[in-house]
C-alpha cells in the first residue's frame, strides 16, 4: 500500500514524526517498508500491510491510526470518528438475493453536479500513488477508497432506468453462461466480456435484470459517468470475502477493490465512505445531496474477548502488570474493562475485524510494548528422546559412501516424462514427478565427466538420497530412494564401472549389516531406502556432533578448464609438499588446482608428475596464456635444480 506522507499528516497532525522515524516505527511495531520514493513534491512510503491487517490498514486512515497507536497519541482528525447523519431516500431500492454474500448495500443520490477536471491537490495525491486522474467524480471514489479503505462506484442516474420513479438495484449470483461486460483493463480501451460460471456475485439493474458489474471485483460501463453527467448514484457496499476472492482469482482481476473486500473490511465502513464522498463531491463537483439508501440485513459486531494477564505474560515471556496490558490494548482503540482481577474483557474498535481471540490481543501487547523487550532464554544442552531411523541410517549411508570417494548430489524432483503428472506444471519439461533417481544420476555422470580434470578426479562417483513418487492402488505413493553411480570413461557406461559400484555396495552391506540385491544398470544402482531402513534395527542413540572442516566456496566458472601435466626429477631432499608449494606460488591465480598423480624414486632422485588445471571465471583461456605460465614454471624448476622430463 502506497502511503502519501502529507496525507498521513492530515490525520495524525503535528505529532507525525519525519519519514525516517515513521518507517522505523512501522518496521519495529507493525509492517515492513518496501520503499520510499518522491513523486513531484510528495513523499510516498510503500508499506507492506500484513494479511491480517488488510481489513483496516489498506488506507491512509488505517496507517495513520496505527502510527497514533504506536506513538500513544490521538488522531487530529479521524474520518471514522465522525457522527453520521445521512438523510435517507426512498428513490432508490435494492434487493439482495443472498444476504450473507452481500451483508450491506448503500447507495447515495446527488443531483445537479458538474463533471470536470479534478482540482490540482486531488490529482497530485492520486498521481503520487500511481493513479491516473480521470474526472472529479471518478477521482473522488478512488480518493475515498485510499483515504478510508471503502471501495465505491458511481453511476449516471439519468442513464439508469427508473421503475415507478425509483432506481432499482439487485445483488444476486450469476447464471451459468451469463455474460457481464466490465470496464476495460490493463491499457485496453475495449470493455471485457466475462462469461460467468455461476459463482460470481453480480450487481444488476433490477428493472431489466441486466448485470452491471461483478460485485466487489470490477464495475461495468453500464450507466457510466461521462462529461455531461449531472445526477449521480454512488454505491458503497460490503461483499463476502471468499466470493469476491474466487471471482477475482478466476478472472485474474486483482485490483484495489477486490483486494480490500477479500480481507473482510468492517460492515460499518460503507456509510463512512458515503459520508466522506458526499462532502467531497459537494466540494469539487457541486450539486445537492438527496439522500442515501442503506440496506443492512446482516449486522455484525466485534466480539468481547477475555484476555488473561497470566496468559499474556506466559506467551510473550514478559512480566507486565494488568495496568500495563490494559493501557496498551486501550491504545488500539479497543474497549477494555476488568472482569475480575487478572482478566480483562477487550473489544476491538469497529473497523478492526482481526481482533477475535485472546492471542490476537496478546500479539497487540507484544508488538506495541516492543518485541525488542523480549529476553532470550538460553537453551539447555540435553539429549533428544528418540532417534529417527530414516535420518540416522541416511546419515550412516552418507558417511560410508563419502569414505568410498563418492559425492552427494541433490537433483530435481521434476521430470519431462514419468508416471505421475502434476495438474499445474511449471514447464512442459518439468510436468512429472520422478519415480526414481537413476535417470538423474546418469545425467549427473554425463555432465560431470567433462570436469574430471578440474575436480582432480579420475572417475565420477556420485549418489543421491531422495524422495520418489509412484502410482499405488490408493493413489500417489512415495518412498525414500538411494541411487549410486560411477563413470570412468566419458563416452558412456562400460562394464568396468561395475567394479567400484560393487565395492561401494559391499561397504554398505558391511556397514549396515544387510544383503543388498540391487544390480548395476548402466553403471547406476538404485535401492528402495524406505524398505531397507524398515528392515534395520531401530537405532538407540544419536552420533555425537563432530568437529567439521571449515568450508569456503568459490563461484563455479562458466568457462572451460585446460589441464597440463609436468613431470620432474627432483633431488630426494625435496619433499612433494615443498615442490607443490613452489609450483603453486609460481602458477598464477589462473591455476585452480594442482594434483600429484605419479611418484617414484630412482638413483637418489624422485620423479613427481603433477597435473595443473587452469581456468578463468571471466573468459576462455588461450593456449598461449597457459603456455606462458608453463614456461615460467619450467624456468622456476631449472632454478631449483630440477630436471623437467
Amino acid at each position, binding site marked *: 500500500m502506497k502511503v502519501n506522507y502529507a496525507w498521513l499528516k492530515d490525520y495524525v497532525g503535528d505529532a507525525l514524526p519525519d519519514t525516517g522515524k515513521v518507517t522505523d516505527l512501522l518496521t519495529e511495531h507493525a509492517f515492513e517498508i518496501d520503499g520510499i520514493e518522491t513523486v513531484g513534491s510528495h513523499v510516498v512510503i510503500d508499506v507492506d500491510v500484513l494479511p491480517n491487517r488488510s481489513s483496516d490498514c489498506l488506507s491512509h486512515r488505517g496507517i495513520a491510526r496505527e502510527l497514533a497507536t504506536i506513538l500513544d497519541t490521538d488522531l487530529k482528525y479521524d474520518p471514522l470518528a465522525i457522527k453520521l447523519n445521512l438523510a435517507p431516500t426512498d428513490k432508490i431500492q435494492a434487493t439482495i438475493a443472498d444476504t450473507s454474500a452481500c451483508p450491506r448495500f448503500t447507495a447515495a443520490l446527488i443531483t445537479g453536479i458538474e463533471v470536470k477536471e479534478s482540482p490540482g491537490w486531488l490529482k497530485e495525491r492520486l498521481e503520487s500513488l500511481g493513479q491516473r486522474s480521470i474526472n472529479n467524480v471518478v477521482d473522488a471514489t478512488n480518493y475515498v477508497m485510499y483515504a478510508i479503505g471503502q471501495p465505491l462506484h458511481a453511476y449516471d442516474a439519468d442513464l439508469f432506468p427508473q421503475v415507478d420513479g425509483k432506481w432499482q438495484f439487485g445483488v444476486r449470483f450469476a447464471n451459468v453462461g451469463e455474460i457481464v461486460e466490465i470496464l476495460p483493463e490493463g491499457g485496453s480501451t475495449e470493455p471485457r466480456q466475462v462469461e460467468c460460471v455461476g459463482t460470481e456475485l453480480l450487481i444488476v439493474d433490477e428493472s431489466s435484470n441486466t448485470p452491471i458489474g461483478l460485485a466487489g471485483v470490477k464495475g461495468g460501463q453500464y450507466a457510466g459517468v461521462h462529461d455531461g453527467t449531472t445526477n449521480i448514484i454512488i454505491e458503497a457496499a460490503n461483499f463476502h470475502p471468499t466470493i469476491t476472492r474466487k471471482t477475482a482469482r478466476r478472472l485474474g482481476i486483482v485490483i484495489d477493490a477486490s483486494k480490500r473486500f477479500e480481507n473482510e473490511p468492517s460492515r460499518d465502513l460503507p456509510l463512512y465512505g458515503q459520508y466522506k464522498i458526499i462532502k467531497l463531491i459537494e466540494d469539487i463537483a457541486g450539486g445537492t445531496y438527496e439522500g442515501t439508501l442503506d440496506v443492512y440485513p446482516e449486522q455484525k459486531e466485534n466480539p468481547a474477548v477475555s484476555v488473561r494477564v497470566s496468559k499474556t505474560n506466559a506467551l510473550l515471556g514478559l512480566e507486565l502488570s494488568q495496568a500495563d496490558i490494559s493501557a496498551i490494548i486501550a491504545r488500539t482503540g479497543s474497549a477494555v474493562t476488568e472482569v475480575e482481577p487478572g482478566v480483562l474483557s477487550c473489544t476491538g474498535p469497529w473497523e478492526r475485524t482481526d481482533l477475535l481471540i485472546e492471542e490476537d490481543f496478546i500479539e497487540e501487547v507484544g508488538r506495541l510494548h516492543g518485541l525488542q523487550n523480549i529476553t532470550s*532464554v538460553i537453551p539447555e544442552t540435553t539429549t533428544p528422546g528418540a532417534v529417527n531411523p530414516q535420518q540416522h541410517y541416511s546419515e550412516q549411508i552418507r558417511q560410508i559412501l563419502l569414505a568410498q570417494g563418492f559425492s552427494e548430489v*541433490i537433483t530435481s524432483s521434476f521430470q519431462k516424462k514419468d508416471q505421475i503428472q502434476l495438474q499445474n506444471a511449471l514447464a512442459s519439461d518439468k510436468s512429472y514427478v520422478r519415480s526414481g533417481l537413476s535417470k538423474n544420476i546418469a545425467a*549427473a555422470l554425463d555432465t560431470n565427466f567433462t570436469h574430471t580434470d578440474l575436480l582432480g578426479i579420475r572417475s565420477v562417483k*556420485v549418489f543421491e538420497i531422495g524422495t520418489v513418487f509412484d502410482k499405488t492402488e490408493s493413489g*500417489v505413493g512415495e518412498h525414500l530412494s538411494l541411487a549410486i553411480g560411477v563413470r570412468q570413461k566419458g563416452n558412456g557406461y562400460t562394464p568396468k564401472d561395475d567394479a567400484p559400484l560393487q565395492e561401494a555396495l559391499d561397504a554398505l552391506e558391511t556397514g549396515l549389516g544387510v544383503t543388498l540385491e540391487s544390480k548395476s544398470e548402466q553403471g547406476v544402482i538404485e535401492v528402495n531406502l524406505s524398505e531397507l531402513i524398515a528392515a534395520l534395527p531401530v537405532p538407540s542413540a544419536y552420533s555425537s556432533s563432530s568437529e567439521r572442516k571449515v568450508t569456503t566456496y568459490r563461484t563455479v566458472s562458466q568457462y572451460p578448464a585446460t589441464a597440463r601435466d609436468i613431470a620432474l626429477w627432483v633431488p630426494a631432499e625435496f619433499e612433494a609438499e615443498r615442490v607443490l608449494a613452489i609450483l603453486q606460488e609460481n602458477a598464477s591465480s589462473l591455476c585452480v588446482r594442482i594434483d600429484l598423480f605419479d611418484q617414484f624414486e630412482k638413483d637418489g632422485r624422485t620423479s613427481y608428475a603433477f597435473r595443473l588445471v587452469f581456468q578463468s571465471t571471466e573468459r576462455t583461456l588461450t593456449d598461449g596464456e597457459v603456455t606462458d605460465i608453463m614456461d615460467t614454471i619450467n624456468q622456476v624448476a631449472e632454478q631449483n635444480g630440477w630436471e623437467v622430463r
Partner: protein
Amino acid sequence: MIDEINHIFTDIGFSFEEGPEAETEHYNFDQLNFSPEHPARDMHDTFWFKGKDVSDPTVLRTHTSPVQARFLEAHGAPAKIIVPGKVFRNETTDATHEAQFYQLEGLHVDKGIHLGHLKGTLEYFFSKFFSGKTEVRFRPSFFPFVEPGVEVDMRLLEGDSKLAGKWIEVMGAGMVHPNVLKAGGVDPDEFSGYAFGMGIDRLGVMKYGVEDIRDFYSGDLRFVNQF
C-alpha cells in the same frame, strides 16, 4: 550442511521428524489454520496432483509445517522436533528462487514455552552455525499457523565475514496458533509452543556466499565438491 544444522539442534534436545512430500491439502493447509479460499493461501503458489491420481486433494508440500500438525496429532505434547525437508513452490526460478528448496521446521511445545525461548534457541543456533556470537530480533509478521507471528532478523556480531554487523531477514516464526494446537489434540490452556521455518538454501547462500541457488540442485560436482 543439513547434517551440521541437525547436530546443532540435537545438542539441545530436538529430535528429527519427517513427513511426506506428496501431502494432502488437509495437512498442508487446513490443519494449519489456512481456511479454504483465505488470502493467506496466495502466499503459497502450490503444485497440485491430478484429481484422478489421488483420493484426497494432494499437493507437493509447500512447507515442512504439515509435519507439525501430523506430529501433534500422533504424539500430542510435549513436542520438540526439527524437520528438514524438500518443499515446492510453483514459482519461476531465478538465482534466488527455486521451485524446490530445502526448509527446516522447528517446533517446541511444552508447559510455559514463550517467545523468549524462541529467541534464545535461534540465537544459539545462529551463533553455532555462523561460528560467532549472533543476536536475533523480532518484527511483527503474520502466518496463519502462529499468533503472535514474527519475522526474524539476525546479526552476526563477530568475525570479518561479509555478514558481520548487518541485520538480515532469515525466517518466519511465532507462537503456535491455538487452532493448530487444538487440531492436534493439545489443550492451548495447558501447553504453549513456538514454531519456526527457514530456507536451508538461504542459510547456505549466506554462509558460503553462493550466488545462484539453482546450483544446489544441479548435481554439478564443481559445486557440490566444495562442501
